[in-house]
C-alpha cells in the first residue's frame, strides 16, 4: 500500500485508479484517510469544546459509552460495515443480547435448556441500556474488515498455552481466584475499556496539568498532561502508565507499562481477547470531540509480539448529566468468588467420597438422567421441589441442603443436568 500512497500524491487521474484498486482498504466509517494508505489516520475533531480557565478543552462531567455493537464484525456482515435505517429499526426490536434468558429470567419467558442452564451472565433485566445512535457492524475501525488483525504464530501458541492453564467463562473451571477475570476479583477492568451491560458512566475532572477519569467500576485513571517521561520500565500496573496531551481539541493519551498479569478477557468491558498478556501493549487513545454531547473514543493497540499490525476500535462517548456515579465497593462484599471456589471444593470432596466408596456408574449420577422422560425422573427421584419455565426446569436438592440439581427438559426429555456428576442417592426424596 505504500506504493499506492506514492501514486496518490502524484496525479488526479491516478488517484481515481488507485482509489478503485484500494477500495477494500478504505476504512468503513469514512472519518479516516482518503489516501488509501495502509496506516490508519485518526480523524480530526469537528467540535471545539469550551476552554478551562487554563486553556485546555473542558471535557469535565459524566460520560457514558453503552453500545450493543460487537468488537469484531460478525460473519454475516462481512462486506457490510454499516446497517441501513430499516436494518437498524429491525435490530432495535430485538433483545440487545442473547442472554434475555439466564440468571433471574422471568418464569414466563420461553428459553432453551442451554440458555436456562447458562449461569455465566446476568439476564437483560440487570442491564442499563442507553445505546447511542451508531449504525456500524463492528467497533473495530482498523483493520477495515472490522476484525482483529492476524496474530503472530508465536502469539497463537502462547495464547493456546495460557488458555490451557487458566479457567475461563467457557471452561467453567475454578481452581483458584486466578481463574476469574480481574473485574470479578474486584481488581481492575481492561484498559482500554469496552462496552458493558451497566456502570460504564465515567466522570472526568480536570485541574491544571492533570485529567482524571473515574470509571464507575473500580478504576481511576490519573493522567498527567506535562509530557513527563513514563515510569521505569520495571514498574508494571494493571492500567499501565498514562501520559496525555491535547492535540487541538483532541485528548491523546499514550499508555505503556501494563502488567503481564492481565491475561483474561471475557469479562464486562474487556477489549483484549483471553490469552494475550498485556505487558507488551502500547496503547494510544484519542478522545475526539464531534459535538457538545459526543466524543468519539479511539483506542489503538500496538503489540508487535501479538499482532501483525496495530488495530483500532472506536466507541462513542456521550455526555450524560443525569448519570449519578455510585461507589463500586466490589471487593468489600465479594462473596461471588468465595462461594464459587467453596462450591467447587465441595463438589470435589463429594466426588472423592463417592470414589472412595467405589466408582459410581453413570446411571448412579445425574449424568445418567440425560434423555430420561418426566415419568422416569419421577420414579427415580420423586416429585421435584419446583417446576419452572413452563415445565422446562425441574429443581431437586440434596438431603444435606448443600446442592441444587436442575434438570432442563426439551421435548419431554432431560437435555441438561446441572451439576452432571451429582450422586443420585444424595438427592432428597419428597
Amino acid at each position, binding site marked *: 500500500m505504500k506504493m499506492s500512497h506514492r501514486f496518490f500524491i502524484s496525479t488526479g487521474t491516478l488517484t481515481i485508479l488507485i482509489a478503485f484498486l484500494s477500495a477494500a482498504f478504505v476504512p468503513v466509517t469514512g472519518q479516516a484517510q482518503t489516501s488509501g494508505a495502509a496506516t490508519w489516520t485518526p480523524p480530526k475533531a469537528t467540535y471545539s469544546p469550551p476552554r478551562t480557565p487554563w486553556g*485546555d478543552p473542558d471535557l469535565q462531567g459524566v460520560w457514558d459509552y453503552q453500545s450493543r455493537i460487537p468488537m469484531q464484525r460478525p460473519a454475516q456482515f462481512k462486506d457490510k460495515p454499516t446497517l441501513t435505517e430499516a436494518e437498524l429499526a429491525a435490530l432495535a426490536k430485538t433483545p440487545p443480547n442473547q442472554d434475555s434468558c439466564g440468571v433471574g429470567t422471568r418464569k414466563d419467558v420461553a428459553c432453551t435448556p442451554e440458555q436456562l442452564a447458562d449461569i455465566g451472565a446476568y439476564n437483560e433485566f440487570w442491564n442499563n441500556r442507553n445505546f447511542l445512535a451508531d449504525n456500524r457492524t463492528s467497533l473495530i475501525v482498523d483493520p477495515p474488515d472490522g476484525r482483529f488483525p492476524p496474530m503472530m504464530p508465536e502469539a497463537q501458541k502462547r495464547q493456546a498455552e495460557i488458555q490451557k492453564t487458566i479457567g475461563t467463562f467457557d471452561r467453567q473451571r475454578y*481452581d*483458584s481466584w486466578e481463574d476469574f477475570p480481574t473485574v470479578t476479583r474486584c481488581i481492575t477492568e481492561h484498559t482500554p475499556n469496552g462496552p458493558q451491560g451497566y456502570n460504564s458512566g465515567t466522570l472526568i475532572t480536570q485541574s*491544571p496539568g492533570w485529567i482524571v477519569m*473515574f470509571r464507575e467500576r473500580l478504576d481511576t485513571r490519573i493522567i498527567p498532561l506535562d509530557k*513527563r517521561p513514563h*515510569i521505569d520500565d520495571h514498574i508494571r500496573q494493571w492500567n499501565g502508565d498514562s501520559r496525555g496531551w491535547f492535540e487541538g481539541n483532541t485528548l491523546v493519551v499514550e499508555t505503556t507499562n501494563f502488567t503481564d498479569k492481565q491475561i483474561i478477557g471475557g469479562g464486562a468491558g474487556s477489549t483484549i481477547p483471553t490469552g494475550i498478556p498485556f505487558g507488551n501493549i502500547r496503547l494510544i487513545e484519542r478522545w475526539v470531540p464531534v459535538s457538545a454531547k459526543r466524543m468519539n473514543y479511539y483506542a489503538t493497540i500496538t503489540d508487535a509480539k501479538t499482532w501483525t499490525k496495530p488495530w483500532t476500535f472506536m466507541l462513542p462517548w456521550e455526555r450524560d448529566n443525569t448519570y449519578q456515579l455510585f461507589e463500586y465497593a466490589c*471487593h*468489600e462484599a465479594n462473596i461471588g468468588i468465595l462461594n464459587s471456589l467453596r462450591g467447587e*471444593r465441595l463438589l470435589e470432596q463429594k466426588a472423592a467420597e463417592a470414589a472412595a466408596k467405589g466408582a459410581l456408574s453413570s446411571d448412579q449420577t445425574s449424568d445418567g438422567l440425560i434423555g430420561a422422560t418426566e415419568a422416569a425422573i419421577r420414579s427415580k427421584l420423586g416429585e421435584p421441589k419446583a417446576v419452572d419455565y413452563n415445565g422446562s426446569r425441574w429443581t431437586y436438592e440434596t438431603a444435606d441442603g448443600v446442592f441444587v440439581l436442575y434438570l432442563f427438559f426439551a421435548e419431554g426429555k432431560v437435555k441438561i443436568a446441572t451439576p452432571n456428576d451429582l450422586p443420585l442417592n444424595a438427592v432428597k426424596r419428597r
Partner: protein
Amino acid sequence: MENPWKFALIVLFAVRTTAAQTPAGQTALGPNQLQTQIRRLPNGKPDLSGIWQALNTANWDLEGQGGGPSPVLELGAIGATPPGLGVVEGGKIPYQEWAAKKKQENYKNRLKLDPELKCHLPGVPRATYLPYPFQIFSSVSQGKERLAIVYQYSYARREINMGKPTEAPIDSWMGWSNGKWEGDTLVIDVSAFTTPILLSPEGPPSEHWLDRAGNFHSDALHVIERFTPLGPNHLAYEALIEDTKVFTRPWKISMPLYRRLEKNMQLLEFKCPEYTEELLLGPYRKQPNK
C-alpha cells in the same frame, strides 16, 4: 503553542488581599508570605490541587502510643508499631462504656478484624492518614467548582459536591461529601456511611475502624473535615467526629498534610484486593495434591 495552562498557573498564583485563616497554634508563615504563596482558583478560593500525604502514626493509633512489637512474629521490626504522639484533641477518644470495651476487644483481635488487613475501603477520615499519598483535583470551569480526591489505597476516591448540599442517594463506605468554603478553609460534611457487612459466611462482619489499634465508629458517623492551607506545600487538616451510637460527645483530630514534592510525583496503583486473595480465599483454592 506549548502548555497554555502554564501561563494560566502564573495568573492563578496572583495575590489575594484578605488574610488566610489558620487554625489556632498553626503559624507556619506570616500573613504576607501566605497570601503570595497559596495557589488560587479563578474564584479566589485556595487551589488545593496536588498530591498530599500525612506524616504521622495516626493510622497505627489515633491516641498515640509508644513503640511496640509486631503482631506477626515473622515480621520482626518491619511489622513493629512506630511510636507517635497522637492526633486526638485532648488525647483520649470519648467512648461510651460498651464501646471502650469493644475497642479493647478489637485491639486483641486486630489480626482478624482490621478492615485494612482485608483491603476494605477505609472511609473518612481514615483515608486521609493512611500511609499512602492522595491527590486532590480542583478547578472552577464553566461557572462550576469541581473537587475530586483520589487515594492511592485500593480504589478509594471521593467526588466532593461543591454546589448546593445534596442528600446521599444511598449509604457508602466512603460516605457522601458536601463541600463549601469558610474563608480559605475547605469544609466537607461527610455522612451516610454503610452498616457493617458480612463478607464470609463464617467470618465476622467487616466494621469501620479508624486505625490499626481498633478504634472504631458506627454507621451513625458524621464527619466535618476542614482543609486550610498553611502555605504552598502544607495543609492543616481537622476532622470533627460525631457518632451518637459510639461516643459520648463529638471529638476532633488534627494534623498537617504535606505536599509530595518529588519531581514527577504521581500516584501509582495499590490495588490491594489482589494482596488479600490468599488470605481471604486461600482455604478454597484447589490444593495441588487433590
